[in-house]
């Protein structure tokens, strides 16, 4: 199947990821609707709601992106459509980051102005209960299931090698933190501490900014053809070294520089090769390209370019950033 790694069970995992995305959207919608009812004068709940609305974007982009990104290449888009998703993510991540900054100042100003949040009664089944208690219930709903949805997404992201899904999973899994902050804010209000609400709102806005930053880094790295990282972004993905080692084992190869790009969930690699002598067979080169493709299941294509000597710019790909 185009657009997913040739791993066993990847197709099944893709269906699962689709269901998770739809589940995410329905779940977040339910949270938003409930928050509308209990929001009253709480800045923490307002901030939490903005975060929830923004968290609709990644699963939506996943569904659209999966649809668009799998279109086959054509004359106009010879490399295919995978990058469309990355482009969408840059926009979404920027929005997330900016909303975080806005909410940070919004909460900060309320704190500075010593604004007292007003939360009154809510008519429920013939009784009037304090809306703050209902707010806490909604927050538990917004934090707990999100954690498990995040974990499930993380698993799919690993099988599918989908960075944007991994980033979304990470944000979902951390959702309980902002819910907990808002719960502490509301509990503070209950105890007559007006400032805990805005303080919690500021904390949540920091979490929103962090999510935006994570997504922005992932997306920008993508469109800039950054050296592929592992899904947790902690270290370099071994794929380039694996191709490099494979080609160096070929008897006709003297020097190799491998450059790998990530296109959505797949890799394409370009290997500049300096042969030991200037007579090499086409068969040897094309077979090496095909076999190199097998060193990692996520590779969709390895291009081998035989050269007499390494072009300057290609040679620079060996240098570290600082040099």
């Amino acid at each position, binding site marked *: 199947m185009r657009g997913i790694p040739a791993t066993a069970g990847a197709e099944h995992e893709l269906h699962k990821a689709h269901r998770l995305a739809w589940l995410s959207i329905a779940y977040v919608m339910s949270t938003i609707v409930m928050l509308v009812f209990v929001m009253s004068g709480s800045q923490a709940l307002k901030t939490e709601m903005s975060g929830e609305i923004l968290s609709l974007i990644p699963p939506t982009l996943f569904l659209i992106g999966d649809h668009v990104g799998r279109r086959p290449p054509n004359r106009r888009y010879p490399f295919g459509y995978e990058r469309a998703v990355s482009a969408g993510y840059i926009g979404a991540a920027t929005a997330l980051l900016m909303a975080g900054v806005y909410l940070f100042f919004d909460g900060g100003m309320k704190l500075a102005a010593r604004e*007292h949040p*007003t939360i*009154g*009664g809510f*008519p429920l089944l013939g009784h009037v209960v*304090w809306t703050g208690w209902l707010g806490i219930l909604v927050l538990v709903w917004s934090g707990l299931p999100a954690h498990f949805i995040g974990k499930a997404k993380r698993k799919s992201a690993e099988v599918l090698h989908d960075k944007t899904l991994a980033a979304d999973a990470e944000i979902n899994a951390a959702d309980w933190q902002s819910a907990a902050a808002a719960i502490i804010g509301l509990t503070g209000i209950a*105890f*007559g*501490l007006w400032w805990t609400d805005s303080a919690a709102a500021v904390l949540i806005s920091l979490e929103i900014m962090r999510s935006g930053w994570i997504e922005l880094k992932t997306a920008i790295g993508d469109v800039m053809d950054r050296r592929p990282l592992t899904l947790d972004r902690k270290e370099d993905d071994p794929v380039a070294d694996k191709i490099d080692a494979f080609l160096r084992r070929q008897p006709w190869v003297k020097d190799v520089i491998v450059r790998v790009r990530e296109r959505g969930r797949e890799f394409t690699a370009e290997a500049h090769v300096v042969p030991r002598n200037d007579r090499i067979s086409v068969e040897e080169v094309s077979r090496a390209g095909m076999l190199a493709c097998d060193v990692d299941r996520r590779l969709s294509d390895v291009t081998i370019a035989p050269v007499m000597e390494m072009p300057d710019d290609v040679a620079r790909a060996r240098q570290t950033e600082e040099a």
Partner: protein
Amino acid sequence: MLRRLPAIFVLLVASCGLPRDPEGTSERIASTHQLRAGVTDNSPWVNAQSAEPQGIEPDLVRAFAHRLGARIIWTRGSETSLAKSLEQHELDLAIGGFESKTPWRRIAGVSQPFAWTADGKQHVMLAPPGENRFLLTLDAFLSEHPSAPKGALS
């Protein structure tokens, strides 16, 4: 044990008197037996011309004060001056035909609606900002005293 948890929670919360008022409005009313109410003329909701304000809303406030065991100290003023006084915690509530979409909700607390007009407007009282215990008491009182069913007033 698990089945009793909600009951225990309600008991605990009630015994701590949660939520509390940051500025202590409820406690002050309980100790001084004074309810400071602001009125502004808006017939038929409030008629502030006579010495003792008349109308639907003053009647409600009198019933509320009776419930609290408090005497009412009336203050007359414009909407603006009443809202400012609420913000400064110089009043405990204000009436004057305020609707739930009132612009004063930016600086004051807004009660649950107690009356609905034919064109769908909801009538509310204003309370000091952030005095959540007092507002909850007021909301509970108003829910027991809906002054007019939906669509009965125009």
